[in-house]
């Protein structure tokens, strides 16, 4: 065979720099420990620690066990619901009805308790109500195939409406004092609420489920590509169904906590909590498009918001500032990485340009 012509524009320097198809001087993708220490989750944890330190130094009385108690009691509902919500968002769905489910649960246990049922039975029925509500979402989303954002806007209204139907304009407050006292009790002198033990169990359950089980391995795959997930045998519909049952059940837990902590069962309990939960989850590094996210990051995100909230309140900074800070933090948490990426890209381009010979100085008018 004949070669009509042959050119080689590659000069020796270029060849040297990019010998094995890989830039020698370029930092490789992070692996192993650096990946963990510099990852998104780690940054959230550093931010949390920084916020704690700053608050402890600048706000008198912040550094005390009392803070731990009040702060944790405040964030528990968000922390609880954020766990299954993380999994749901990782599969690319969303559940806006969580606060309404908590409200419905609260209403149901209020009415049943007033009707004279045994408190244990009442709480179990409350949980079942949450699970059933979640199953309704799950059925519509996973089985019928409706978009979750739309469905749960509907059930947000529906479940809150049902709460009103159940309890109307009444409020039930006379829960057993031992029980309500238990929900605000602390673990010895640590200031940590006793119920945190249960919450920690819930967190551990979802962390293991997401990060160390076959089921959890499938979730990011579903979030990135439902179709490809199906081709490796993941039952997408079933996984989603159970996740919504999960958010329903945990929302019911949050509803129970809410009712007993404030010893007040009302139809409007926990209203508006859905956006707070989602904000915390997104701040914790979960991608709203699905696929990416982790439980440690989300826990750090929830606590960060909690610390800032409580710190500012203790410092008597106005609520107005607080919501501006929360909003800005949320924006910053997603904008910062993309700014970081842009800087990285720019530095990479500059390095490459320095290393690769620019063939003609004049010939490349940048339009």
């Amino acid at each position: 065979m004949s070669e009509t012509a042959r050119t080689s524009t590659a000069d020796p320097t270029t060849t040297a720099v990019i010998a094995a198809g890989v830039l020698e001087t370029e930092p490789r993708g992070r692996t192993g420990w650096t990946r963990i220490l510099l990852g998104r989750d780690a940054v959230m944890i550093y931010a949390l620690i920084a916020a704690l330190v700053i608050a402890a130094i600048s706000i008198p009385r912040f550094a005390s066990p009392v803070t731990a108690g009040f702060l944790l009691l405040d964030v528990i509902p968000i922390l609880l619901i954020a766990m299954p919500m993380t999994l749901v968002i990782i599969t690319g769905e969303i559940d806006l009805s969580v606060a309404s489910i908590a409200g419905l649960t609260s209403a149901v246990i209020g009415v049943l308790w007033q009707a004279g049922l045994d408190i244990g039975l009442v709480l179990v029925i409350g949980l079942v109500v949450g699970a059933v509500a979640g199953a309704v979402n799950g059925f519509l989303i996973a089985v019928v195939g409706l978009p979750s954002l739309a469905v749960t806007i509907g059930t947000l209204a529906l479940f809150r409406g049902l709460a009103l139907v159940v309890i109307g304009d009444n409020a039930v407050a006379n829960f057993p004092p031992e029980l309500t006292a238990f929900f605000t009790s602390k673990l010895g002198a640590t200031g940590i609420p006793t119920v945190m033990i249960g919450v920690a169990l819930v967190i551990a359950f979802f962390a293991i489920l997401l990060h160390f089980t076959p089921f959890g391995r499938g979730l990011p795959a579903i979030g990135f590509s439902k179709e490809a997930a199906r081709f490796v045998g993941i039952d997408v519909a079933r996984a989603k169904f159970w996740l919504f049952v999960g958010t329903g059940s945990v929302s019911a837990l949050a509803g129970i906590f809410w009712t007993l902590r404030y010893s007040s069962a009302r139809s409007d309990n926990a209203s508006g909590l859905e956006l707070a939960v989602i904000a915390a989850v997104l701040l914790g590094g979960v991608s709203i498009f699905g696929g990416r996210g982790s439980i440690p990051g989300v826990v750090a995100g929830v606590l960060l918001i909690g610390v800032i909230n409580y710190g500012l309140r203790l410092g008597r900074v106005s609520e107005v500032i607080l919501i501006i800070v929360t909003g800005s933090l949320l924006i910053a948490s997603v904008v910062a990485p993309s700014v970081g990426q842009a800087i990285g890209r720019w530095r990479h381009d500059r390095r490459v340009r320095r290393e690769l010979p620019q063939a003609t100085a004049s010939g490349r008018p940048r339009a």
Partner: protein
Amino acid sequence: MTVATRNAPRTERTSPLSGFLRRREIPVAAALIVLVLVTYAANPLFLSQQGVKDLMLNATIMIILAVGQAMVIFTRNVDLSVGSILGLVAFLTGTLFADAPGIPIPVVFLAGLALGALLGAINGLLVTVAHVPALVITLGTLYVYRGINNAWAGGTQYFAGDRPDEFGALAVDTVLGFPIITLLAIAVVVIVGIYLAGARSGRDLYAIGSDPEASRVFGIPVARRVMTAFVVNGLLAGLAGVLYAARFNSVGATTGTGMELDVVAAAVVGGVAIFGGSGSVAGAAIGAVLLTTITSALTALRVDKFWQQAVVGILIIAAILVDRIASVRTARKLRLTEARDV
């Protein structure tokens, strides 16, 4: 080898009527008509002159917001900050009338539109320049704008009495039976509708929502179009804010709180696909009318007040279901009559 194995394309066109019936707005519009008729049968006052006027007035602001929101959703984005934008603009309107007595009404409108567009542009910039998901950004600006509104307004509220009568009259006077602000909303639907269906840049919005990556590869100026959608949405939220001030009694720190999900619900009920690419502003507008009418209808039907919200929820879900059934039908038809052996 020949193409003999393939049938010739079917020459008959799908009839205009069946094409019309397949449109996604139809089930919602039908639901709206049924709702109105049933309510009317039970309570003739529902369609009295005042009743009809009230229905239109109730829907007006939601229609304008839903049209803007639909534009953003077409591009596979969402704007949750509209309620906060509306609140800020409404308060601006109140402030202008209070602090600059005698200010011409058109100037107030322009100022409101400008502030709305500015706030929309901030959303758009963050979304397009920083390449971050709109849901997160606008959830953030929802809080920030609301915070600014609170900081600015404090406990101040402006009441109907602080505004010139001609301004309030916009929400009272009618032309051909239509309140003036409702006519404005209809004009918005028509103009935006024509733009989206008939202008190249309008069609681009659907393409972007349909497949953002492909749009980039194809050379559609994605950032510019998405930016446009956000700015227009902000502008319309601004318009809604000014009209809110004309129609309602007071504007203050909390005006427009909690509206965002209702607006998204209206668009979705009207057949706007939440993941972009399909739907129409007419559909979104009908969705808005349906949702605002449900509340009035239930009151007119004397449905127990505690049931009202639950019924609204059921209707939202029913609307999505109906829409879904319709689109599954079309999809099945497409599958059975595959493109090339139509």
